[in-house]
């Protein structure tokens, strides 16, 4: 992970990279990644609820 990655484009111009990208896409599509179950329920909170929880900081 790197901040710079956020600012860079992904241009594939070399044949070796083009082939590797497509193989990766196909492999990932077929791949069965591990099934991850969250150990706690997750909810996203927005708006005034954020103030309710953190307003006293």
């Amino acid at each position, binding site marked *: *992970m*790197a*901040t*710079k*990655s*956020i*600012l*860079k*484009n*992904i*241009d*594939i*111009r*070399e*044949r070796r*990279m*083009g*082939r*590797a*990208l*497509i*193989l*990766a*896409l*196909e*492999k*990932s*599509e077929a*791949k*069965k*990644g*591990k099934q*991850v179950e*969250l*150990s*706690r*329920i*997750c*909810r*996203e*909170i*927005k*708006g*005034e609820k*954020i*103030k309710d*929880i*953190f*307003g006293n*900081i």
Partner: protein
Amino acid sequence: MTGYTLINLREMIEHLGEDKTKIILSNFMCPLNKDVDDFLKSKSIEFSKQGIAITYLVFASNKNENVLIGYFTLATKIIMVYRTSLSNTLRKRITKFAQYDNDFKRYVFPAPLIGQLSKNFFNGYDKLISGDELLKLACDKIKAIQREIGGRVVYLECEDNPKLINFYSANGFVQFGKRKLDRDEVGLMQGEYLVQLLKYLKP
């Protein structure tokens, strides 16, 4: 507050203000990667305000207190594959994933970036969530966005560290390339390049 709570950093700034938000972010520590630590404390707010990348904070209840246990940052990216980089056979195969842009002679497809992802090692808060769970939260957020606007692929870059690559690989990511570190990145992370990985998000 029970369970995990996800908050968009921009929403937090809008409702709590920057000063209070900075206090919350100051309780974050990642000794494994200086860039991940620096980003949250010194760049995430500006990036969120400018819309360059959006950070999501993950909280959990710990001893009756809401504590920051991790975060991830997402950014819009488009992968561009120039026609000349593909054989005729591969050009056919890529049409399953990408659109052809005739003006620029390239195939394009959206691949949102997970730009940062880290647990908070401050005070042992990293024990409150697993890396798998944090990555799932990031991928689920991207899936939800893609359900609204389209897209199937998520992209990230990580250090060339076998433990990290195994972690992403076990979670369905596949390596396809490497990016050499820029001069100003050297020293912030291990090695001389970052490994590029992608994952096809199944509906």
